[in-house]
């Protein structure tokens, strides 16, 4: 009698599409946000007293390019992750293909413009005038 054992793993050709990329992006950004967002909450609200969160404190933080990059990554991943979630919800309830397309374009433009606009604000922030020497 022939007896087989073990699990057979097979490679398959998978057709990619936008939804697959969106799914992978949500997983990747979700894991990244676990580090970035939890780190942000810990630093801003646990290690530092939220009542002392003044412009001077923010300026001192953004005096470092490391923290500027951290906050820009937080902005990029959190905003695009959230807006893709919104896109998913809207696509559930909007059934007209043309309307879906318009909504998606509006959301994409909103995400790109907001990230660029906020990114410029963070990158060009000059901390010097707000830091008490």
């Amino acid at each position, binding site marked *: 009698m022939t007896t087989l054992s*073990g*699990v*057979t793993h097979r490679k*398959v050709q998978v*057709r990619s599409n936008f939804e697959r990329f*969106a799914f992978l992006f949500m997983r990747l950004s979700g894991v990244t946000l676990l580090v970035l967002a939890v780190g942000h909450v810990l630093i801003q609200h646990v290690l530092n007293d939220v009542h002392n969160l003044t412009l001077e404190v923010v300026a001192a933080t953004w005096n470092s390019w490391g923290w500027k990059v951290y906050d820009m990554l937080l902005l990029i991943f959190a905003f695009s992750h959230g807006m893709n979630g919104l896109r998913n919800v809207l696509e559930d309830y909007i059934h007209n293909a043309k309307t879906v397309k318009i909504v998606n374009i509006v959301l994409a433009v909103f995400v790109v413009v907001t990230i660029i606009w906020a990114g410029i604000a963070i990158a060009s922030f000059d901390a010097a005038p707000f830091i008490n020497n």
Partner: protein
Amino acid sequence: MQAQLRIRRYNPEKDTSGYWGEYTLNNINPNDSVLDLLHRVKWEIDGTLALRRSCAHGVCGSDAFRINGTNMLACKTLVSRLGAGETVKIQVEPILGLRVIKDLIVDMEPFMNHYKSVLPYFINDEAAPENGRERLQSQEDRARFDDTTKCILCAACTTSCPSFWANERYIGPAAIVNAHRFIFDSRDQAPEKRLAVVGDTFGVWRCRTNFNCTNACPREIEITKAIAEVKKVLATGEI
């Protein structure tokens, strides 16, 4: 013991919209099933009540209804599960997301079309083994899709899914479960054809992982887990 039943009624030849029919049944037993009570309403009070049922033992999947707000099989749901005391209130309505034909009967065509779209049958063009015996498979390979072989196509999962309620083009949990059953079968040769269907815009990506389907399944299939396994195959390209 007494049961106060509220049953959603709709007769397309008479009614412009649905309404609640109220019926009181005396001398019921905690071990009676909801199907027993529906039979008593139909046979003793109002013979026009329309419902689907067949085996009455949780195998055929005909009598999935929304009972007290949750999808269940009427034949497997005992009165004792719905309440205790002298009077038990039970509300029965058609499963959601499918067109109501009459009373508790819904149009299952959209559901069955999604099921058929995943090619829910064994595909292997190689000749059968010469000895006339079955195509062999290891116990480990068989175990991978054991859970999803249990589906009875009652539609309790698909019609408990908010994504399906929102858009009936979503193929739904039942179709994905049946795709899983063959995608993970090492003897089957058409996983890519099925992955093309479930990987489409209205395939697995519409699943929001809210576990309604898993809770609704009368066969206790871990549906959300099966959907996640299909998503993983689509993400990695490896079964």
